[in-house]
């Protein structure tokens, strides 16, 4: 039976985790994601599951590593400064091919910054914020509904590829309350068999979860294995949403909360007869670079709008700058580009000669 409730983005991600069969959560308090931590504590008390409020973010991510190495679905969440601390564990999780779900409800930086929403952790999320050659799958929801749907998906992808999946939310999406519809009777999926998990060496050889090898060629081999996995993900898991691009003279590219503001601007301008459309990456890694490259073949002006000083724009340029002009507008430090400002930037770019 379908159920419709009013819920915040943070809590929706918690509900999704429970419904995805998450059995372990460790999280250290930090604003603006605290509702999620409290939600997990409550939900696990009712549904069964292990909740730990650890001594630090370093411990939290290492606990997720340990729980996931034991074979259960495990998650942690935080906001930007806390996610920086988790980079150590994320690198180890990546090197050891362990599934994990990590939620980042982004706030302004650098440093302690403030608790206002931002998108300035894009580089950290998609380029591998810790040491070594690795990637996470990075999913960027644009609504409370999508925060729920993508969190469930994050668990499936994490298990499928034995990789860390990150939900890149932000302070607006975490705090906003919207309608959420889901199938109330759906049972958590049965996670796939995990023959690699640490469950005791009974009737089998010992399993070892690790990223280290004293032999140099083994670490290189592990890197090649990781790269092979990343190529598979790039070919199968790109997700995006596009509208109004068929006849567009200009395309706005934005993700997350920013895409909603950009969409309002684009829709108003459409009504005034302006040929503008919007392209919204849903997977930030793998990045929809082929789709943007294709778009740049016919839409010659692309405006990237971000709540940052310009991070995703670099990836858009790599994909599209050969054939199209790529412009940028962004605000950072908790500043949020308004619909008016985005409209102004669109009109300015439309008026420019190429």
């Amino acid at each position, binding site marked *: 039976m379908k159920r419709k409730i009013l819920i915040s983005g943070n809590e929706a991600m918690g509900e999704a985790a429970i419904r995805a069969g998450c059995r372990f959560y460790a999280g250290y308090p930090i604003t603006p994601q605290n509702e999620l931590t409290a939600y997990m504590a409550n939900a696990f008390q009712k549904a069964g599951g*292990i909740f730990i409020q650890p001594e630090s973010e370093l411990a939290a991510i290492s606990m997720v590593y*340990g729980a996931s190495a034991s074979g259960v679905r495990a998650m942690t969440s935080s906001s930007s400064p806390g996610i920086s601390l988790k980079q150590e*564990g994320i690198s180890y999780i990546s090197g050891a091919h362990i599934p994990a779900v990590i939620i980042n409800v982004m706030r302004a930086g650098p440093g302690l910054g403030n608790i206002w929403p931002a998108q300035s952790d894009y580089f950290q999320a998609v380029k591998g914020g810790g040491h070594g050659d690795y990637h996470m799958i990075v999913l960027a929801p644009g609504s409370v509904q999508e925060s729920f749907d993508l969190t469930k998906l994050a668990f499936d992808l994490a298990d499928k590829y034995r990789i860390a999946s990150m939900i890149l939310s932000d302070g607006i999406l975490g705090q906003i309350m919207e309608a959420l519809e889901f199938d109330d009777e759906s049972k958590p999926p049965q996670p796939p068999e995990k023959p690699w998990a*640490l469950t005791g060496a*009974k009737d089998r050889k010992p*399993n070892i979860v690790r990223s280290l090898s004293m032999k140099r060629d083994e670490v290189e081999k592990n890197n090649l294995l990781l790269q092979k996995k990343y190529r598979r993900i790039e070919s199968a898991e790109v997700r995006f949403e596009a509208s109004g691009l068929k006849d567009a003279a200009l395309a706005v590219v934005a993700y997350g909360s920013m895409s909603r503001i950009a969409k309002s601007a684009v829709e108003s301008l459409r009504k005034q007869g302006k040929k503008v459309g919007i392209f919204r990456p849903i997977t930030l890694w793998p990045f929809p670079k082929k789709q943007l490259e294709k778009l740049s073949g016919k839409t010659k002006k692309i405006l990237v709008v971000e709540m940052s000083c310009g991070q995703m724009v670099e990836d858009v340029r790599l994909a599209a700058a050969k054939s199209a002009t790529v412009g940028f507008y962004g605000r950072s430090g908790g500043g949020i580009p308004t619909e008016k400002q985005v409209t102004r930037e669109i009109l300015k770019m439309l008026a420019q000669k190429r």
Partner: protein
Amino acid sequence: MAKNYKRPESLVDVATHYCAGCGHGILHRIVAEVIDELGVREKTIAIAPVGCAVSAYDYWQFDCAEAAHGRALAVATAIKRVQPDKVVFTYQGDGDLAAIGTAETIHAANRGENLTVIFVNNAVYGMTGGQMAPTTLADQKTATTPAGRDVKKEGFPLKISEMLVLLDGVYSVERTSLSTPAGVLVTKKAIKGAFENQIQGKGFSIVEVLSMCPTYWDKSPADSARWIEEVLSQYFKLGKLK
């Protein structure tokens, strides 16, 4: 005549990478013997440290996880919580447990996690070339204290086991030494007790083992054992602390 002394099933039949006179080989064997004697090899999960024993899993025949430097007890906490029926232990050096992992150690202990901790104290960082450890003695020369540890600048050797005694969550704390055959037997008994505590659900049990590092103490194996007897164990007193 019956052959009583044999290789434990939990110990792989390979030469270790440890230096001559190092205590790790003895301690690995003790752990393997205890796991065999308790009949829990098939449900044991170890967490290896970062340090000289980083690849301890090359020598043990049971499941093993690596952890980031200092995070072994966070990893162990999660493994044991998810699988309370398993026997979970960490094997950590002084740098891992008492410097970079101090927070993880104190808080896992304070939560009273039902875990066994084997803490190898050789008063020096071996893996990285003999730098000062939190447990390096006053005036002890290391790669980073060439004139000897100056307690005015570098602080005092950290008595983390004594600190753990104060925590209500901790069930058992014992300090032993590998410097004599008798010490080896005491160590084995203490480690077996720490595992039995976990099996009986009694809670956090730690055995601190004073162990030789001839290479970075710049001593012969025999002199290293003697140094534990005469010097190291005078500061880090042996015995059952809790």
